């Protein structure tokens, strides 16, 4: 297996224009909204909260699987957005920026509560708990609840081994379902760079998984 990821280069797929996806984040309707918040317009901030609250809430719930924690962390995310928006530099979309803050807050929370314990104890939905008690496999023939929890625990651990940027990119791609083209537009990077970064992240995750299973 060729492990040389440092010299990786991708040809531009579908012609030169696709690789140069650039979105002007400074001159959009969203940028106008941000500028209003930066000028201390509280109504504009309210609009941002209302626009992104369900997105933020579901990102957090996807990671932590606890509704109360999700609410608490979502509040914290928007408080951070409020205090940091004055430094927003329009290099990425607001959603990408909020996504980054949200995932970081989740990881801060997990760090504080010690990842393993938390995931095992608070990840349960009522349905999961019932399945676990009866020790039966999932009704629909899918992976049993305890295995799913262990898998989620594992992937959260693996994601903590890559950089913040790599983690956000792979989550935006695989969890949020954005295409490479969309990611390029959201981050202001070109498509080839996105592909290289995704590939490196995938390889790092595989290596981390290998190390983890060797340790176990």
């Amino acid at each position, binding site marked *: 297996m060729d492990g040389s990821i440092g010299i990786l280069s991708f040809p531009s797929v579908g012609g030169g224009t696709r690789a140069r996806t650039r979105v002007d984040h400074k001159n959009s309707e969203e940028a106008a909204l941000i500028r209003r918040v930066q000028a201390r317009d509280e109504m504009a901030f309210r609009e941002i*909260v209302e626009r992104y609250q369900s*997105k933020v809430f579901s*990102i957090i719930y996807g990671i932590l699987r606890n509704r109360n924690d999700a*609410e608490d962390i*979502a509040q914290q995310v928007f*408080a951070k957005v*409020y205090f940091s928006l004055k430094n927003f530099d329009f290099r990425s979309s607001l959603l990408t920026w909020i996504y980054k803050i949200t995932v970081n807050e989740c990881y801060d929370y997990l760090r504080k509560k010690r990842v393993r314990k938390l995931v095992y104890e608070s990840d349960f939905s009522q349905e999961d708990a019932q399945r676990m008690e009866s020790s039966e496999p999932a009704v629909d023939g899918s992976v049993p609840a305890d295995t799913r929890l262990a898998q989620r625990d594992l*992937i959260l651990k693996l994601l903590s081994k890559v950089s913040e940027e790599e983690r956000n990119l792979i989550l935006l791609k695989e969890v949020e379902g954005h295409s490479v083209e969309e990611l390029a537009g959201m981050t202001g990077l070109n498509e080839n760079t996105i*592909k290289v970064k995704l590939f490196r992240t995938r390889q790092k*995750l595989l290596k981390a998984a290998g190390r983890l299973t060797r340790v176990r």
Partner: protein
Amino acid sequence: MHREIRHHIEDVLASSKSVPGSEHLAQCEECRIEIQRMREQTALLRELRAPESFASEPRPGFYARVMERIEAEGPISIWNLFIESAFGRRIAVASLALALLVGVYLVTSERSAQDPMVAAQEAQPEISGQQLVAGEDAPARVITQMDQSSAGESSEDAVLANLVTYRDQ
């Protein structure tokens, strides 16, 4: 992983259909294994999606609660870095301990350097109501201290006593 697949990895992972690089994949077991591991990893990542049944709207009044938190927290200051992060807290505690040590050292060294006579006096055994001031080789002179309430006065007396001793010689 070989270059032929690396170039199209996102397409290969996204689809089981024929994509550029499929021919290589059919022949190369090494790449097939790695692609399979990446597919498993992708499936794991997708476990982090919120279930479709999840009602993603927070409870009513969310904005008001956010504003309450903002008011309670106030703007983030540089001190939050020390208070909130464990590393920052450790640095703060270490700095305080260091400052305390330096403070103690300065106070003790200054005291002994400032008043060697007082230190010498303190080293001598005290004679009831009297204090011995002269050095070993000089004739001893005993001064009676009528009032020992002021440390400044006693050190002044000690200097005078030394002067008198010097003249007597």
